[in-house]
């Protein structure tokens, strides 16, 4: 059954694809084993991540990007992740709502996934679902993450290109230089750009990117943090990188910085430019070899995650709860420390010993 289902996925049969993804979500091990059928199609699609805070317009932007990519004759699949309730385990998956205009286009497949307890902005099955969709012949797989805060960055382990969506009014320039989410964008988008403050957000992001590039190039010792701050301030006042007076930091060529683009997803304004940029970025990465090295590090990151999950599965399989009980007792009665108990637990699991 599983091999047959995998074959039908390779034929691009929608129901088979839908079913296969569900089996992956439910953690069906035979489905995971059957994924070896997709080895030959791995890496064929461009995997695009769209991430940003709740309500920033990710779904609407995705809807408009689907339209753009369809215009470029590409088949598009979307995986839209929304959070599961930590209480009931249920979920309301509402991203599709904004994309239903594409529901009847045979060149588009949209699938909503619930995060099912994962906290990194994706679900466990997401990376695997991507492999199924690319096996089914979709040229571009768009992954829309849950609405993220500051540190949900799993998308960077899965996507070839990450579009980070911001909106005006979320905070000052300190929010922009904080660690985490702002570090993973390949393309920055300020959506709802018809609202007040959009240009300011663009300038703040651009200043952050310039500072980051300068630091990366080892210019910080001569420039000093004060100069960098000054430079950021100049940017905030003057907007254009070229218009700012020369400072100690040499001009950073604009093309090596991730672009910061303005869109109004609701009306589609700025979307063709964004779509074109996404495609050219991918093409550039492919030619330069950056794509392959990025994919290699993605595989490394995913391997680590999967190994950790397998350990947890092993724990569940081996009646780990009984073992847990006795170790917890030992810690509680102070005959063992918790770190030592955890070490013992892991050692037992790896050896496959029973409690």
């Amino acid at each position: 059954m599983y091999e047959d289902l995998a074959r039908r996925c390779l034929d691009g049969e929608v129901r088979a694809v839908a079913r296969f993804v569900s089996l992956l979500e439910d953690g069906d091990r035979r489905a995971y084993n059957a994924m070896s059928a997709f080895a030959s199609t791995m890496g064929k699609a461009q995997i695009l991540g769209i991430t940003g805070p709740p309500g920033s317009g990710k779904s609407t932007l995705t809807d408009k990007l689907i339209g753009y990519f369809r215009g470029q004759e590409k088949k598009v699949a979307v995986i839209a992740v929304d959070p599961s309730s930590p209480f009931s385990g249920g979920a309301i998956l509402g991203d599709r709502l904004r994309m239903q205009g594409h529901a009847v286009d045979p060149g588009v497949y949209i699938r909503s996934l619930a995060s099912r307890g994962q906290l990194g902005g994706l679900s466990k099955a997401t990376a695997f679902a991507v492999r199924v969709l690319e096996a089914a012949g979709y040229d571009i797989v768009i992954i829309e993450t849950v609405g993220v805060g500051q540190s949900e960055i799993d998308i960077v382990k899965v996507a070839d290109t990450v579009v980070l969506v911001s909106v005006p009014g979320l905070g000052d320039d300190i929010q922009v230089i904080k660690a985490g989410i702002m570090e993973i964008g390949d393309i920055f988008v300020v959506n709802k750009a018809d609202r007040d403050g959009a240009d300011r957000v663009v300038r703040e992001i651009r200043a952050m990117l310039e500072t980051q590039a300068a630091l990366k190039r080892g210019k910080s010792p001569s420039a000093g943090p004060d100069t960098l701050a000054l430079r950021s301030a100049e940017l905030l006042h003057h907007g254009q990188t070229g218009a700012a007076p020369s400072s100690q930091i040499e001009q950073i060529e604009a093309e090596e910085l991730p672009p910061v683009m303005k869109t109004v997803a609701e009306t589609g304004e700025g979307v063709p430019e964004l779509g074109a940029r996404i495609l050219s970025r991918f093409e550039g990465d492919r030619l330069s070899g950056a794509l392959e090295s990025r994919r290699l590090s993605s595989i490394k990151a995913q391997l680590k995650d999967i190994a950790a999950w397998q350990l947890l599965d092993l724990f569940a399989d081996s009646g780990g709860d009984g073992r847990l009980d006795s170790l917890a007792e030992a810690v509680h009665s102070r005959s063992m420390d918790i770190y030592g108990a955890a070490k013992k637990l892991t050692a037992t699991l790896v050896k496959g010993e029973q409690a």
Partner: protein
Amino acid sequence: MERKIRVIVAKPGLDGHDRGAKVIARALRDAGMEVIYTGLRQTPEQIVQAALQEDADVVALSILSGAHNHLFPRVVELLKEKGAEDILVFGGGVIPEDDIPFLKSKGIAEVFGPGTPTQTTVDFIKTHLKRS
């Protein structure tokens, strides 16, 4: 991992009132189901494609415009065409008693009127799922 029940909640037709559909969506969510909310003014074709792509077990339709006798059976018909008659379809909204036998004869498993306790709907889904 346990298998999750996936439900499409959709509003076919042209009325713009989705309070009821949202209440049902919430109730099903709280019952541990994954609810894909497709929103207002959906054609039967859109609803059926969503059900197929989302691997739904259930399609829940809500309508208040009076076009149920046309739109509900059309959803069932299209699902059948796609070989997806194993998806449970039921409806709700403002639907006259007299229309219910007709709808049931067309493959709508049940029709829930205004005031139905949400638990009734949850229980109905759990006992009538057609897919294993």
